[in-house]
């Protein structure tokens, strides 16, 4: 809850300009035919994903060069909301020029990122993320048709939510990729559980093999387990993206620094991070009791700086705002 959440009807205001533009003037919308394929000596692939009854359905067309496996052209049709149309449009564009094997690696997050106006502002509000998930699933479907293999090669096609046609692996993936912690978030990202709700927990109007509550609990447990048992990432700190660096810093602050500050009624937030030549600048601001406390500029600062250098990376320089 926050000031921003008090006035409703802001859904469209949260769309990026790119989403708006693609929705108003989709460039890759359309169909490809056998004639188009013959002309280019390519193989036509037509993949359908979703259904009317789920409120989202997309059909992807590919012309694939049989020699190189390269996608020469891509088009789509979409029954869906503005975000679904914009996501499909970007997705089709992204496929062109890639090989089928490369295209399969495109995720919903890539699609969403490509729709952002600026790197740190989401292109759509969280509950619209599912529309980009759809764009990602249809690629796998197209690849499976092209390779004449089951989609299970790319994912284990155990459907958890029939209404929205969401598979077990999609759900596990979005939990992992997006670090989801609640069933509501799973629903926002995948639409699983948004309709008849049978798949959320036992006792709904239809009995299911898998329930979101269990998948979430199991996947979170797996994630915890992996965290404890895998050695720290082979990637060194300097190889991480800024977002990953930020996460690493936040984690250490949460785990080691906040408990100390909170005990005195204080807190600290990371306001910004910048990559600099050979170092990473972390800008912090004190909150609560730390703000007015004279000691905060020396003692507390040193604790924070030392902890981050020790637990994250020696290249970190902490700036107090």
């Amino acid at each position: 809850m926050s000031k921003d959440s008090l006035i409703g009807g802001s859904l469209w205001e949260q769309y990026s300009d790119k989403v708006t533009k693609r929705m108003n003037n989709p460039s890759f919308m359309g169909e490809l035919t056998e004639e188009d394929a013959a002309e280019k000596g390519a193989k036509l692939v037509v993949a359908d994903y979703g259904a009317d009854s789920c409120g989202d359905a997309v059909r992807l067309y590919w012309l694939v060069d049989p020699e190189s496996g390269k996608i020469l052209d891509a088009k789509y049709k979409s029954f869906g909301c503005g975000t679904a149309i914009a996501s499909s449009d970007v997705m089709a564009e992204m496929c062109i020029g890639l090989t089928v094997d490369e295209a399969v690696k495109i995720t919903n997050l890539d699609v969403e990122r490509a729709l952002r106006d600026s790197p740190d502002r989401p292109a759509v509000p969280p509950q619209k993320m599912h529309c980009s998930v759809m764009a990602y699933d249809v690629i796998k479907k197209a690849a499976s048709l092209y390779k004449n293999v089951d989609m299970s090669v790319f994912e284990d096609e155990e459907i958890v939510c029939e209404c929205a046609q969401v598979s077990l692996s999609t759900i596990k993936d979005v939990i992992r990729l997006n670090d989801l912690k609640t069933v509501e978030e799973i629903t926002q990202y995948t639409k699983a559980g948004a309709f008849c709700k049978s798949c959320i927990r036992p006792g709904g109007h239809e009995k299911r093999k898998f329930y979101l509550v269990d998948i979430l609990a199991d996947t979170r447990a797996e994630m915890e387990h992996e965290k404890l048992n895998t050695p720290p990432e082979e990637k060194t700190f300097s190889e991480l993206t800024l977002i990953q660096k930020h996460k690493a810093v936040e984690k250490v602050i949460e785990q080691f620094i906040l408990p100390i500050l909170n005990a005195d009624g204080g807190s600290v937030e990371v306001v910004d991070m910048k990559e600099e030549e050979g170092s990473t600048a972390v800008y912090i601001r004190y909150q609560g009791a730390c703000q007015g406390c004279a000691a905060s500029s020396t003692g507390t600062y040193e604790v924070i700086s030392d902890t981050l250098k020790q637990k994250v990376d020696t290249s970190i320089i902490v700036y107090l705002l």
Partner: protein
Amino acid sequence: MKRIYLDNNATTMVDADVKAAMDPFFSDMYGNPNSLHSFGTEVHPAMREALDRIYEGIHADDEDDIIINSCASEGNNTVIKSAYYENILSGGKKNRMITSTIEHPAVSNTYRFLEKLGVEVIWLPVNKDGLIAPETLAEAIDPDTTALVSMIWANNETGLINPVKEYAEICRENGVPLHLDAVQAVGKIPVDMRDVKADFITFSAHKFHGPKGIGGLYVRQGNDIIPLIHGGEQMAGRRAGTINTPYLIGMGKAMELAVKNLDYEDTEVRKLRDKLEDALLAIDDVQVIGKRSLRTPNTILASFRGIEGEAFLWDLNQQGLAASTGSACSSESLESNPTFVAMDIGNELAHTGMRFSLSRYTTEQEIDAAIEVIKNAVARLRAISSTHNKEYI
């Protein structure tokens, strides 16, 4: 771009006469009506006049109460929670409450909250016409255990008008109080409390060209109500809080005009609605929900095959046309509108439903322009759609 507003079931334009009636009570006659001095008492005649218009508007008896409050949501909460306090919290025998599956959230979410507190709520389903059949209520009601029945008079999404007179008879026979959400009925169809023997009804001024944030709760004589808001002695102790005098006066004027215009609503607004509806039905694969004769004269809920509601609303808005969709995709929660689910026609309405609601300010030119806008949007979106490949019109 000249915009067209066909979302009058969401809210309406404040009538210029209503605005004029309210105006003196902001900065000239701003006294608190509870004060004994002249600043307070000089407001009384206009307030009394407004109450008269509101009582007349729904044909309430002078012995009945119309509690002026902030909105219909407040009124609905007051009635439902009052019945809960009186019958259930007190440990009484009447521990069940009855409502329908097509209520506005102001009723359904209040009942859902009571369910969490352990109340047994019976949700009545619709029949093939989209109405709650009186027999369905008759079967569910039990004179010994039913504490309250809450029903929507006219549904906000479909405009379908429920057989409320029959409900009232059934409730009387069983000695169970009846609460009607009359928000979409007032100003659209006659609301006559002499004829419909309900115990409580609720309404909001902004649905009939009055201001937002003021409403009324009708309480038939002989019924108790436990206040939702405790405090001062306003509204005879039934609803505390300094009364919003300018808005009450505005609501009085709005009621007067709404009742005067009921005939116009029934003839001219209906004509324009029917013209729009005929044009929609001429488009391929469009379905309108509910028989015309059973609906308020201003409302159309239509399903456009192959077009997702939010995308449709987007296109209409780009061309300056305001309507409303219950599409799951357009809601914050990704949940389909419950009325659409209850009225389920093959699971698609929840994604393809679009509501157009007119008012007495809607003009024929606007309807003609709206038809063009709608056709353009349908053509564009069906060309994009993967589930509608047929050429249309």
